[in-house]
Structure formats: structure tokens, C-alpha cells
């Protein structure tokens, strides 16, 4: 972390930047909101909920106090409802890449889309790390990544007139098959089995393109990549019977789901302990004053990776963050049940 002064005009300002919109980041908005602190949440996913909505939206959770049973999606929806009065700002599809401490002690947060946010306090609620595309188990694929193997499509034009191979059986694979078929020189979809997880409508459209001879469908697994200097020219597909089929390929898009990686957090100059952020259990502050860490990403003696524990951490962190921002202000401890001033903030 370096020290600098904020200069550019296109910097969004907020009291608190929360890195990660999982359940714990979401609940932090509530606790911080009661103390009049405005939050902006940044997440690489395209929606709130973190692991709850990405990994188990429909599975029941049984250990949320007072909810004998609630699904990952249900919990997220409830949290969104609960924090709505505080009008949090969300920035999705965005990875927080860097943190810089400014001369006045506040922070400048940089993201992978080039936007910057200035904040008095940063709360890292990054869970198991940022969700990133899984690398498929194909030998030597690293050498082609970023040159002819991509895990997302930023500009369709970059794929025009290429021999495109898309690997996977979910919605991303199907959606991009349909979208890129018209611009590709050739397009092959490769999937391990002849059943697709994606929306039935997309599956039908894909099969229609196959029947019309506009794209090829290969049932099998990619076994081998060939090319030079990162540029693919062909791949071999091992079909069900174990035979190898060669397919021309100058652009490959594997869609193998997401995995959590610590990502850029490791470079933010805060003390880590086995890829987790060390915090104290009074303030949940990291080794850097003004940077807090709550939820699955932090570690301290006795830590349990439970949503419930993350909620507790959020409450204590909020008070510490308020003191960090306004050291001279006296914080009056109040209950939402009886405090008219808290109820006014909640709009009830």
C-alpha cells in the first residue's frame, strides 16, 4: 500500500467501501447504517449473496438464529430487504484490485474496470476470496491464456472470423455459443455428455444450429492443445469411445464454473495468516488501521466460518469503524426496538 493524494475528478466518494457483497458484507451495511455511515459494496459477481447465491441458492440453512430453515437465496433476499432503508450503492461485475492510503488517512480503492472510490474506511468481507473462472484440467493451457484461451468475452469483435471452440454445458457456454455463432468462422461446442444444464430454450436453439450445420457439437473432453507462442491452432477432443478428434481452433472459451481465489487481497499490505486476514476480536481491524475484515476472510483464535459469526463481527466492527472516522463523537448504544432515532433511520 502506497501513500498518495487523490487527484482525479472521476472518483466516487463514500464513507465505507465494502469489498464483497456476501451475507456478511450485506449485514454490515445495516450495522454501519445505524451509525449513519454510507456504504458502497463492490463484488466481482453480478448479484449479491456471495457463496449463498453462487454455490447454494436453493439449499436450506438451518443455523440462522430465528430462521429454522432458510435457503441461500432466501437469506440474501431478506438481507437486501433489511438494508434497503440505508440505500447502499452496489458495484457488481467489478474486482477490487488495489487499496491506497491517502495523506489524510482515507483510502483510494481501485477496481479492474478503472473506476476509483474514495472511502474513510475499508471493510474487507471477501469470504473465501473472489469468484473466478475455474481453469479446466487440460495440460499446458496456461501458456494460451489471455492470448487465445479466454474465460469471458469482453468484446465480441475479438472473436470475429475465428475458429471458436466453446467448452462446457451450462448457461454461459450455451449463451456464448448462440451469440458468437454468427461472427465465428467456425464454432464447435464441446461437452462431456449429451445433456446440458443450461436453460431448455438455449439448448433447443443450440441444437437447431447444429441441425442446420452452422455449428458442430462434440461430446467428449478436450485432451490436447496445439499451437505456438500462445496462439492455438487446433485441439484434440477425446470422445466417449476414447478416440481422438482434431478440431481447428484459434479461440477457446472454457466455462467450467467458478472457484474462489484470494486474488489481489494478498497485495494490499495487510497481515495474512494462511490466506486469511488476521484481525483482533474487539474491532475486527486488520494490521492496517482503518481497514477491517469480517466474515469468512478473517481469522482469530476460535474463529468459526459461520454466517452467524460474521453478523456478530459486523456489529462490533461497525462501532470500531465509527470511532475510527469520528473519534470525538460519543456513540450512544441503542436498541432498534426502542430508539426513536434508529427507527427514523430505518423509516419505520
Amino acid at each position: 500500500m502506497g501513500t498518495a493524494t487523490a487527484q482525479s475528478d472521476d472518483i466516487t466518494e463514500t464513507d465505507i467501501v465494502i469489498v464483497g457483497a456476501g451475507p456478511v458484507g450485506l449485514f454490515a451495511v445495516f450495522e454501519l447504517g445505524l451509525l449513519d455511515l454510507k456504504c458502497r459494496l463492490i463484488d466481482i459477481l453480478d448479484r449479491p449473496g456471495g457463496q449463498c447465491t453462487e454455490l447454494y441458492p436453493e439449499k436450506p440453512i438451518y443455523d440462522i438464529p430465528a430462521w429454522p430453515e432458510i435457503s441461500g437465496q432466501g437469506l440474501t433476499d431478506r438481507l437486501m430487504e433489511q438494508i434497503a432503508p440505508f440505500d447502499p450503492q452496489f458495484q457488481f461485475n467489478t474486482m477490487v484490485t488495489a487499496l491506497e492510503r491517502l495523506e489524510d488517512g482515507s483510502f483510494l480503492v481501485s477496481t479492474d474496470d478503472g473506476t476509483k472510490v474514495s472511502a474513510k474506511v475499508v471493510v474487507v468481507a471477501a469470504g473465501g476470496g473472489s469468484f473466478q473462472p475455474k481453469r479446466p484440467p487440460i495440460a499446458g493451457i496456461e501458456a494460451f491464456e489471455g492470448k487465445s484461451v479466454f474465460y469471458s468475452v469482453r468484446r465480441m469483435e475479438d472473436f470475429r472470423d475465428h475458429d471458436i471452440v466453446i467448452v462446457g454445458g451450462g448457461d454461459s457456454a450455451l449463451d456464448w455459443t448462440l451469440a458468437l455463432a454468427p461472427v465465428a468462422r467456425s464454432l464447435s461446442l464441446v461437452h462431456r455428455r449429451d445433456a446440458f444444464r443450461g436453460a431448455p430454450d438455449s439448448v433447443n436453439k443450440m441444437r437447431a444450429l447444429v441441425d442446420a450445420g452452422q455449428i458442430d457439437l462434440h461430446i467428449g473432453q478436450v485432451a490436447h492443445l496445439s499451437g505456438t507462442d500462445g496462439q492455438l491452432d487446433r485441439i484434440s477432443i477425446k470422445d466417449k469411445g476414447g478416440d481422438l478428434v482434431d478440431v481447428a481452433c484459434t479461440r477457446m472459451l472454457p466455462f467450467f464454473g467458478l472457484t474462489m481465489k484470494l486474488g489481489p487481497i494478498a497485495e494490499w499490505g495487510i497481515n495474512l495468516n494462511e490466506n486469511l486476514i488476521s484481525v483482533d476480536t474487539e474491532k475486527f481491524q486488520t494490521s492496517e488501521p482503518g481497514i477491517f475484515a469480517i466474515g469468512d476472510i478473517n481469522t482469530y483464535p476460535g474463529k468459526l466460518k459461520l454466517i452467524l459469526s460474521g453478523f456478530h463481527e459486523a456489529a462490533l466492527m461497525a462501532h470500531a469503524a465509527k470511532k475510527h472516522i469520528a473519534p470525538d463523537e460519543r456513540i450512544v448504544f441503542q436498541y432498534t426496538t426502542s430508539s426513536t432515532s434508529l427507527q427514523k433511520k430505518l423509516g419505520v
Partner: protein
Amino acid sequence: MAKITYITHDGTQHAVDAPNGSTVMENAIKNAVPGIEAECGGACACATCHVYVDEAWTQKTGEPEAMEEDMLDFAYEVQPNSRLSCQIKVTDELDGLVVRVPERQA
């Protein structure tokens, strides 16, 4: 109760007594069988508990359900006898079960 043998990629055998109703994944974790990660704790949401069921046992363990098939798409080197071990429930029927742990989990 069933005896389950896990054979890791280097050929080491780990024999474990597994109580009925538990899963093949849970017994691997409890007994620290290397190579089974089970990141999601058995929710069929991670595909890091992938095993190959010994050919002699595939009948008894049965076919994966649709959700498991979907998750297997994300596993490494999937074969016809691939299963997610968190989705195999132990019964007396499975006494003697042999599963192989793949070289790596996704």
C-alpha cells in the same frame, strides 16, 4: 456399518469402518484420506470430493442423480465410474466398497 477402502493416486490403501447413513466423503475427511477436499462440505456444490468407484461396485452405488451429473461437469478427468463421494450414502450393502481418489480435484 461398511468397510470402505480408498486407494489414493500413489496406490496407498486406506481402509475405514463407515457407519450407515454417513457419506463416503464424510468418512474420507474424518479419517484424513488425502486427495478428497470436499470444499462445500457435502452440498454437491464443489466437485472436490470426486472418486472413481471400483468397477465391481458401480452397480451397488448406482447412478448419479441429475444434480450430481451437473456438478461432475466441473471435475477433473471424469470417467463413466466417476462419482461425487458426498452423494454416496453408506449402507450394509456397500460393505467392502473400493473407491479410487483421482490425481487431483479440479
